[in-house]
């Protein structure tokens, strides 16, 4: 641990807050990514299932 002297609070708080915010945005982006992917896979599966049933809506190739 480096010697921060009287500025310990400012430096530690900066790194704490900065890293927390970075972590938050990374977590948010990754969480949204996972959720969107899961929802889309489910929807494509529904689409494919209906196309297999001979429903008139044609899926233009299953994609996730």
């Amino acid at each position, binding site marked *: 641990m*480096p010697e921060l002297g009287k500025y310990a609070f400012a430096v530690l708080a*900066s790194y704490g*807050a900065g890293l927390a915010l970075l972590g938050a945005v990374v977590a948010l982006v*990754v969480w949204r990514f996972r959720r969107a992917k899961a929802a889309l896979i489910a*929807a494509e599966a529904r*689409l494919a299932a209906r196309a297999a049933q001979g429903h*008139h*809506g044609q899926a233009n190739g299953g*994609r996730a």
Partner: protein
Amino acid sequence: MSIWEYANPKKFIETAGRILPVLLPLAMGFLLIGLVWGFFFTPEDYKQGATVKIMFLHVPAAMMAINAWGMMLVASLIWIIRRHHVSALAARAAAPVGLTFTLIALVTGALWGQPMWGTWWEWDPRLTSFLILLLFYLGYIALWQAVENPDTAADLTGLLCVVGSVFALLSRYAVKFWNQGLHQDSTILKVGEKDPLDPAYYWPLIFCLIGIVLLFLALVLIGTVTEIRLRRLAVIEARERQEA
């Protein structure tokens, strides 16, 4: 083969899938090396003491906060002119990242300013500009969320981004005019001038800068893929409603 091929959403997702496994660790690596180096292995500044270490977060975040808006402007213009949906979605994906960088720059700046300038907040031109930038980001994100039809939302936010950029530039000069300011100028590109950046800080800062640029790119790529999938999802759901 033209660059516009990557404007095809499917191709974009495939390419992003290939780039990200390299880009994400690289970004994290640069950032980690830069921050660890900066935090543990740099000397104290003769004027600023240990608070100089805050620079390794503050400067890259501030730089990317502005550049992110610039990227959104370019992406919005591409959308407005060439109608590539991926471009509009990339602008949308960049906004929360840019907002976070702006927040980091403001928070670390306030924490640095308290011991150095003796105040958490100063109505200095740079600080004020960043506060205004924060408002622009908030308005942009709010408009995206408020408009239901995705194409309408893309058009309106694109327009807001272009008009907002002009006014952001005007604000920057207005604010400079209004208060001359305490904030020091950027020194990183001023090698050879007086009062340059100490070489002891140079390399860790470079690492942090590269790291944050790569991290921004990675987050925008991930976010854009997310937005593309949400668009496709919305289309599938619209079709289901139509058939029902």
